[in-house]
């Protein structure tokens, strides 16, 4: 038990984090293609609301509304810079992705160990399915 169960526990904790983070609001916010596009762009760099508005075939007010929905969901932050309102994505999304990749690596490390013991077993018993000769 031990390690394996712990790894899965950790996985569940990550998922719980996602669950706790006002999931409903997040998914409602992301259910719209324009809003998803705004999030993707603002994760890569800062954009003013007016710069964003020029990208879409809709009014400044409509874009502002989308940004407000995203802001309530915690997916983007809006800060004042001079006269402009600058929108930035929350890098938390990326951090979460990195964390999840760590969990997957852990799973693969365990698989690797399992394969090792499988191969060690056929080195001992020389199963019918292997090509012999190359093994030392």
């Amino acid at each position, binding site marked *: 038990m031990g390690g394996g169960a712990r790894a899965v526990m950790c996985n569940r904790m990550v998922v719980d984090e996602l669950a706790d983070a006002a999931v409903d609001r997040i998914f409602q916010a992301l259910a719209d293609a324009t809003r998803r596009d705004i999030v993707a762009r603002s994760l890569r760099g800062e954009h003013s609301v007016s710069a964003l508005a020029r990208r879409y075939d809709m009014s400044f007010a409509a874009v502002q509304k989308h940004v407000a929905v995203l802001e309530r969901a915690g997916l983007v932050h809006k800060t004042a810079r001079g006269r402009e309102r600058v929108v930035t994505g929350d890098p938390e999304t990326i951090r979460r992705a990195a964390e999840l990749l760590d969990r997957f690596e852990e799973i*693969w490390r365990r698989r*690797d160990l399992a394969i090792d013991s499988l191969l060690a077993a056929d080195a001992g018993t020389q199963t019918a*399915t292997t090509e012999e000769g190359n093994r030392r």
Partner: protein
Amino acid sequence: MTFIESIKDADALTLTIVTEYEAPRERIWQLWSDPRQLERWWGPPGYPATFEVFEFEPGGRATYYMTLPEGGKAWGWWRFVEIDPTSRLVVDDGFAEEGGTPAPGEPGRMTTTFEERDGRTRMTTVSQFDSPAQMADLLAMGQEQGMIEALTQVDALLAA
């Protein structure tokens, strides 16, 4: 000590795992092509996998479940996208309902290549995910069904 390296790319959402084994390529290929051998390493310790359907041919499907220590089963499915015997295998891996019917949501894709040198085989698996939410899905096989549907909406988030 056969774990060579892992390369994580949180932007591209890929995980590359490189391992090397003291066995010829044909032997390592069998770890994937023979479901009885696959079952012995696919599930994490304490979570043994059982493959029920295993159509090992391009376009073929597989279904499996992992038996949870606390009882119950977590189901998954595969689709064999590309099979190039002993050198390359491409598999889509997704979450399934009980019985193995694919659940809503995009699968992840695993591309595994096998290279042999001096009787040793290097196995490289690249896992490609669509979104952090999808990774969470695959990691948490056995979690609440309703959340999974909601999570799949994030798919386009980092793809744009």
